[in-house]
């Protein structure tokens, strides 16, 4: 097991910088997720940690040892790939045993290790099969087994669940979490799925255009997004963004849509225009007129089982909120929205940075 430190990492292929000046510390035994839209450089970071891609500038440390010039073999990392990358000409047993055979471990020891891992992953019945005879979920477990059997210092996972169907993905998510709790091996997990990142990780780094936008616990990334990108990327459905303005003399008030919103944040340093962020989850839509409610016009109602997502227009601004599924709401009807003031996020209009 190891702590991973990336210091001043830059990466360039044939063109602009893919990763620009990245600093990151991943704690020993941590389940760390790098999340971001496709093409943000997250797989590149993983490949650099693995040693498959050299860094252009900067250093990577495993504990106190710099590994920049050390081959993947000596870094003692294991990796699970998005498309599994099993060896198609080998059986499940041979696939899992392969890393140990390369290490020239004695046969009996290999056999014991393989069987132990297979039992843990429920693969005992498939040991003689070849990858093409397995389902996606089974192949994924073989890929995990091949990574686990070595007891590596670091686990690297490159979107390991994205090729599975939705139901299996959720099931494997908790499997991974359980495995991590059992093995306590430092894990770096890459995904573009923000809900996966929130659900599985100890900490999350949100990556965009080769830069880390925020690095925090899932709770803080969701509740205190550092900027508008993180706020828009994390959470589904996406956060509503509205323009507002702050006047110098009123430090707890935003003018927005001809209404003054009182905030818990002190806005004295943010005078001028701001972006207000409100999660659909935090907006309650109701057909009953409430004292503090604002009047809106409903455009779309989308039932989601226990509740409904409701698209509405609030003085010309398109927004989305949540309503109880018991309430009768239809397109074109007038309704009322309320939200707790402490759930209002305020961002600088220019830089997008969070204001507290």
């Amino acid at each position, binding site marked *: 097991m190891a702590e991973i430190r990336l210091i001043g990492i830059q990466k360039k292929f044939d063109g602009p910088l893919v990763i620009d000046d990245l600093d990151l510390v991943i704690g020993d035994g941590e389940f760390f997720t790098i999340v971001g839209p496709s093409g943000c450089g997250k797989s590149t970071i993983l490949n650099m940690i693995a040693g498959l891609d050299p860094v252009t500038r900067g250093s990577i440390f495993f504990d106190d040892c710099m590994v920049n010039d050390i*081959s993947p073999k000596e870094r003692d990392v294991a990796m699970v790939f998005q498309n599994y*990358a099993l060896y198609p000409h080998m059986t499940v047993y041979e696939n899992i045993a392969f890393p140990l055979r390369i290490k020239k471990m004695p046969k009996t020891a290999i056999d014991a290790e393989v069987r132990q891992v297979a039992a843990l992953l429920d693969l005992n019945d498939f040991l003689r099969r070849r990858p093409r005879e397995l389902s996606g979920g089974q192949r994924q477990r073989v890929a995990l087994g091949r990574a686990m059997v070595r007891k590596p210092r670091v686990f690297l996972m490159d979107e390991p669940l994205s090729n599975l169907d939705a139901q299996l993905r959720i099931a494997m998510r908790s499997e991974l979490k359980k495995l991590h709790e059992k093995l306590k091996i430092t894990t770096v997990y890459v995904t573009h799925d923000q809900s996966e990142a929130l659900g599985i990780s100890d900490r999350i780094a949100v990556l965009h255009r080769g830069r880390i936008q925020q690095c925090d616990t899932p709770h803080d990334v969701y509740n205190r997004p550092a900027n508008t990108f993180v706020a828009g990327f994390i959470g589904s459905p996406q956060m509503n963004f509205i323009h507002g303005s702050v006047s110098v003399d009123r430090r707890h008030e935003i003018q927005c849509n001809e209404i003054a919103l009182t905030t818990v944040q002190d806005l004295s340093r943010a005078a001028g225009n701001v972006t207000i962020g409100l999660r659909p989850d935090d907006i309650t839509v109701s057909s009953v007129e409430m004292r503090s409610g604002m009047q809106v016009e409903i455009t779309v109602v989308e039932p989601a089982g226990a509740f409904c997502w409701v698209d509405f227009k609030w003085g010309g601004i398109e927004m989305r909120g949540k309503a109880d599924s018991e309430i009768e709401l239809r397109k074109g009807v007038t309704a009322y929205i309320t939200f707790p003031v402490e759930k209002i996020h305020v961002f600088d209009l220019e830089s997008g940075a969070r204001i507290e």
Partner: protein
Amino acid sequence: MKRTLFYMLLFAVIFFCAAPFIWQIITSLKPSGELTSLPPLVSMNPTAEHFRSVIYRHQLVRFILNSLIVAASTTGLSLLLGSLCSFGLAKLKVPFSSPILAIMLSVSIFPPIATVSPLFIFIRALGLRDTLLALVITHTVFSLPLSVWILTNFFKTIPDDIYHAARIDGCRSFHIFYRIMIPLSLPAIVTTAILVFIFSWNEFLFALTFTSTSSRTVPVAITLFAGTHEIPLGEIAAASVIVTAPIIILVLLFQRKIVAGLTSGAIKG
């Protein structure tokens, strides 16, 4: 209606391709007197005299052995060098790999007749005239571009992730080559082997130029059956049948191996 047309067309193509060979077989079994009679129908009194003659009088077995040694060595050498080279070009980060591949292929574009004179001087200088080694070397040189081309393209179809997985699992490049790449490329390797073998087995120009007596190969030997006054059609036909048969058997035997789908199951899809 459509089906009949399809089968008629199919039959026409097969007949077009197979007719010369069938003619050859028929001729090889005819007694000398009927050899030039047309149409080439199967003789009423077939004979094995031509086969006996090629084997005993012309010592065809010796030449077949020569051909076999040359073709097998060429195939082995060409595949060994070709597969290593292709692995480098397809999977390792070799700079300028595309130009290298293009230059290699351009070697095979030279007409052999243009290179045969300088090569002859070369071979003579090396003291390799009339040796099988001379043929193995030249055949390897001319078949290598083909091997590299086919194998490079096949290696490229093996997902990079499998290569990366093997590196993470602790393999050195050469380990990956023989434990992962070679087993996965077996169909391509067999295909290449057959093509190279056939090329070398049939090659005529270099064999004629570089050999004189002891290391003569089959195509040259058959050509030299013809004397000044007569062309022994029956014997040429018999020898051709004997020589072509192994190739056909080879292809039929390995045809099963030339199946795609060996890589299926490695990745999703």
